[in-house]
Structure formats: structure tokens, C-alpha cells
């Protein structure tokens, strides 16, 4: 019984310590390095690391040297079994804004160890509310517009299905 208790204590403490001591900022730098290889650079951002989360604020996202979006806050919560990313106030810039006049109020991405190859998405923007997923194995993004508001600027990227408008693309 004592051995079971010790193992339980060890595992519980180990999990908490792994999350708390995780070098979140350095892991984010690594992610940035990988994104740069794809032509995506996030810059101008400020970091605030806490034992349970990493806050990145006021960043600008550029693609192939062109600034495409600005965000006010992104919060990473890497709990290993459940990882979340929450972005607030994503505003498109310059040419991206001209090509696609939409704003994203909030974007939530969830990844659980139960479905390791799927990232679930919840988006609220000027176009309404949307839910979707990214299938990492299939390289597929699927987003359903649940309550369409102003989808005119998005329509050329959308398709109409039985459930309503949706976006689908492979990467």
C-alpha cells in the first residue's frame, strides 16, 4: 500500500513539476524557428511566463516578409494531456486586409492526448461563430461557420454543404 502511495505521489508531483518547470518561452522560440522555415515570422511580441501558462502580447505575424496580422494576446497552456492556445483580437493588416476584410475576436485551439492528431478550433470573428478542426495526419483544415454574420468577404473561400457554409483546405 505504501509503495502504491509513493508511486502515486511521485507521478503526481512529477506531472506538476514537468508542467511548472517547462521552459515555455524557449519552447515557443523553437516553434518560432520552425515557423520561420515556412516563411512565417512572429515579432515585436512581449512574453510573460508563469508556471502554468505563457502569455505573448502585441505580436505581429508576417508571411514571406509581409506583415499580415497583429494580435493583442496569445495564451499557451501546455498541460501535456490537454494543451490549449487562446488568441485574442487578431487583426489583419495591409494587403491581407484588402484581400480578406475580416477580424477575429478570439480563436481557441485545443489538443488532447486522447486524439493526438486532431486540433479542435473555436473561432469568433466578424463573420460569426465557427468551429472546426485540423487533422494533422491528413493535413486537412475544416471549419464550419455556425452562425454566419457577415461572410461576404469570405465567400470566395467557402463552400456550401448540408450544415451550411464551411471552409476546407489541405496543407
Amino acid at each position, binding site marked *: 500500500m505504501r509503495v502504491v502511495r509513493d508511486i502515486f505521489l511521485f507521478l503526481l508531483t512529477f506531472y506538476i513539476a514537468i508542467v511548472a518547470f*517547462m*521552459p515555455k518561452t524557449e519552447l515557443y*522560440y523553437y516553434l518560432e524557428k520552425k515557423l520561420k522555415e515556412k516563411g512565417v515570422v512572429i515579432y515585436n511580441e512581449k512574453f510573460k511566463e508563469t508556471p502554468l501558462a505563457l502569455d505573448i502580447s502585441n505580436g505581429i505575424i508576417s508571411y*514571406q516578409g*509581409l506583415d499580415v496580422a497583429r494580435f493583442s494576446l496569445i495564451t499557451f497552456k501546455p498541460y501535456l494531456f490537454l494543451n490549449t492556445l487562446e488568441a485574442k483580437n487578431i487583426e489583419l493588416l495591409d494587403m491581407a486586409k484588402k484581400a480578406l476584410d475580416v477580424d477575429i475576436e478570439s480563436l481557441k485551439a485545443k489538443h488532447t492526448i486522447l486524439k493526438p492528431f486532431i486540433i479542435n478550433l473555436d473561432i469568433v470573428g466578424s463573420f460569426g461563430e465557427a468551429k472546426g478542426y485540423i487533422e494533422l495526419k491528413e493535413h486537412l483544415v475544416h471549419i464550419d461557420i455556425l452562425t454566419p454574420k457577415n461572410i461576404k468577404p469570405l465567400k470566395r473561400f467557402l463552400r456550401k454543404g448540408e450544415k451550411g457554409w464551411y471552409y476546407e483546405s489541405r496543407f
Partner: protein
Amino acid sequence: MKADSKNSTLAILIPILSAIFIAKALWVGASYYLPKSSVDKEYKSEVEPLYYRYSLASKKAAPKPIIVKKKKIKRVKKAPPKPRNLEVKKFSLKGIYYSKSKKIATIEYKGKTYVLEPGEEIKGFKLAKVMPNYVIFTKDKEKYRLDIFKEEKKNKPPRVVTPQREISTTPKPVKKEKKQAVYQEGDTTIISKEAFDKYRKNIKDIRRYIGGVPIIKNNKLKGFRISYIKKGSDFDRVGLKRGDIIIAINGEEITDLSVPMRFMNNIDSISAATITVKRGNEVKELEYEVR
């Protein structure tokens, strides 16, 4: 009792402390391989790329400035003939830098190279004007034009430009042709200022006439492929063809979107430009001038 209590506390602390220690040690080890600083945006130089033309033709083949005899005008009293400034014949225009803020001409004279800006002199000839394809020198109220890339036209009759009027034996372009939005003049495509302004003000309209798709290889932008050109439109006459890949603007390679963006942002001040395209296995330079 006390010893028992100490033992049980220690028994609880050992797995807790060892778990903390192992977790921390694991992350310290992993941190060693992780980057220590954030990726920053690489800023391209904001210096405006210079429009540059140069001639690699040998000295023998290099075009010589040529003087045309003025049209003889019958006068009661004949003015004494002006001394010919034949020294200018020895000038050879080797290159031109042309941008909004800077204009430079490279002149070769008796084997020496001179880099001149407007207003500067060489052998008494003042560099009056630098244009994308030619320069104008002045001396004794006479103007002398020096062209670049005119080897094929070197047998054409020479000309002198007077301050009052231009007398030339070269056939002037037909007026009707000049009114066209886009026309050819030698190697250069001339875009009329009116047409240029029209498209500049309605950049979105351009998409109706010409389309391009970015070419990305190994996640790096390599240029833009012309996907369509509307037949009969002005864009059909600018020398671009469907399938061409635009790889550079004014000599600046398109390696990211900031290059065409900077060009578009400065479009108000553009009077000349070079676009480098890849057509099949051939690389071509297309010269444009707004007049």
C-alpha cells in the same frame, strides 16, 4: 513516536522531491538544445533600388554620339558657322543609374571612366539630363544626345538638339502611335503617363487584365508566374507573356513579398523600371519608362 513521525514524513518527501528533481533535470537538459532568443523579422534595406542600365559592348561597338547638321534655313545674313564640338564623339555611354532621387551616368572617354551627375562637366560638356536610355550634354548652347544600347542603330543618321527645337533626320514616331498607352521605343516599352496614372489609381482593376501566382520553393518565394493576360489590353503590349516568371524588380530579386510591396508603395514616384522575367530557360530584362 517522534522517530516514526519523522520517518513517515521522509517517506512522503522522498518520492515528491525526487520527482521534482528529475523533472527539473529533464528540462534543464532539454533547455540546452532549445533556442535562447526569439526570431526577429529581417528587415530589408529601405534603400530604393536604383534603376540601372549598362553596356558591355566593346569600345569599337559602343555607340558614338553623333551630330546632325542643322536644317539649313535660308537667311539674308548667314551666321558664322559654329565650331563643331567633335570631342563629344569620343564619349561612350557605359551605364546609367536612374532613380527618383539619384541619376548617374558612366561615361568612357579615351579609355578612362567618368561617373557624372547632372550638372557635372567633362571636357567642357555639361551633363544636362540623365534619362533611362540616354543622356544629354550641353556645350555652346548645343545639345548632344548619347544613347545606350543602340549598337543596332549606329548607322542611323546623327542628330543635334538645339535649345529651340529638335531637328532630327530620324523619323519621328507617328503621332497616333505616341498617343497609345503602351508602345515600343527600341528596347524600352514606353507607358504613357495617363495610362500609368489610370492603373496606379485603380490597382484593383489590374487584376481584370493580368494575374499572377506566387512561386514558392522550399518555403521561399521565388517570384510570380503570370497566370493570364487579357488579350488586347494594355498589359498584352507590355512584353509579358503567360507563363513568364517575374524574378526581379529593378535588379532586386523577389525573395519575399516585401520586394513587390515596396515597389507598389513607391509607384507614385516611378518613372522607369526594369523587370526581370524567366521565360522557359531564358532570363529576359524588360525595360519600362513612363512618359
